[in-house]
């Protein structure tokens, strides 16, 4: 088949008439443009591959269901589908591309998606266990308030009722607990961030 002379519209018609080769011709003709467009947004071969596949699955299903309205705009239609799927992908990952990267700098290397991967989860667990060890060095009254507030999620009113001190005293103990905790961390040169 001579792809350069046959229009997209007639290939679509052929495909709808049952000629499966017409789909192959359409994919071959536009695969580079569509795949490059997807890759330019996601910068990941595997994700681009998935989105490319999902795009054409949608195309095939729409065509076979007879829902495609031919207006001589096959490529813009497919590009729109892939664009929507790219947006869905970023929505799923709770992030949106804000910059069009043209150089080697990848903005996503400095943007985090908020979700924890296995490594950051491990680091977070480690930090939490370190903090639990550190607070044991606080004076008992401060430790008590801090534990109730942070780990038991109690309000200062509840803490004051439970410990028999005023709310202001509980607030003061919490404040000193945090100040002392910072001092302990500084003294030991600890870095408790990921």
């Amino acid at each position, binding site marked *: 088949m001579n792809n350069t002379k046959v229009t997209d519209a007639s290939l679509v018609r052929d495909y709808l008439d049952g000629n499966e080769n017409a*789909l192959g011709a359409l*994919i071959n003709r536009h*695969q580079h443009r569509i795949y*490059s467009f997807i*890759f330019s947004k996601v910068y990941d071969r595997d994700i681009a591959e998935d989105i490319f*596949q999902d795009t054409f699955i949608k195309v095939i299903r729409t065509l076979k269901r007879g829902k495609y309205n031919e207006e001589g705009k096959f490529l813009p239609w497919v590009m729109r589908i892939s664009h929507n799927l790219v947006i869905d992908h970023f929505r799923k990952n709770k992030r949106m591309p804000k910059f069009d990267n*043209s*150089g080697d700098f990848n903005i996503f290397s400095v943007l985090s998606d908020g979700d924890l991967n296995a490594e950051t989860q491990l680091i977070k667990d480690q930090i939490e266990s370190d903090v639990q060890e550190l607070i044991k060095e606080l004076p008992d009254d401060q430790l008590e308030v801090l534990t109730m507030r942070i780990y038991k999620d109690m309000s200062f009113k509840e803490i004051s009722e439970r410990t028999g001190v005023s709310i202001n005293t509980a607030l003061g103990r919490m404040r000193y607990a945090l100040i002392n905790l910072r001092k302990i961390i500084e003294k030991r040169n600890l870095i408790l961030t990921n």
Partner: protein
Amino acid sequence: MGKLYFKKSSKEEKINHLHPKKETVEFLLNYSKALRVNEYKKMKFETLLN
């Protein structure tokens, strides 16, 4: 040195040579061959025949 200014960045270069994997295209063609849409009283049912 001058060449450096005209050298395309690796990403630009990459994008110009991008194509989906053969397997992906083959999968799509096979999917298309296997997919049948049957109509029954205004309803449409999709079946995948292996």
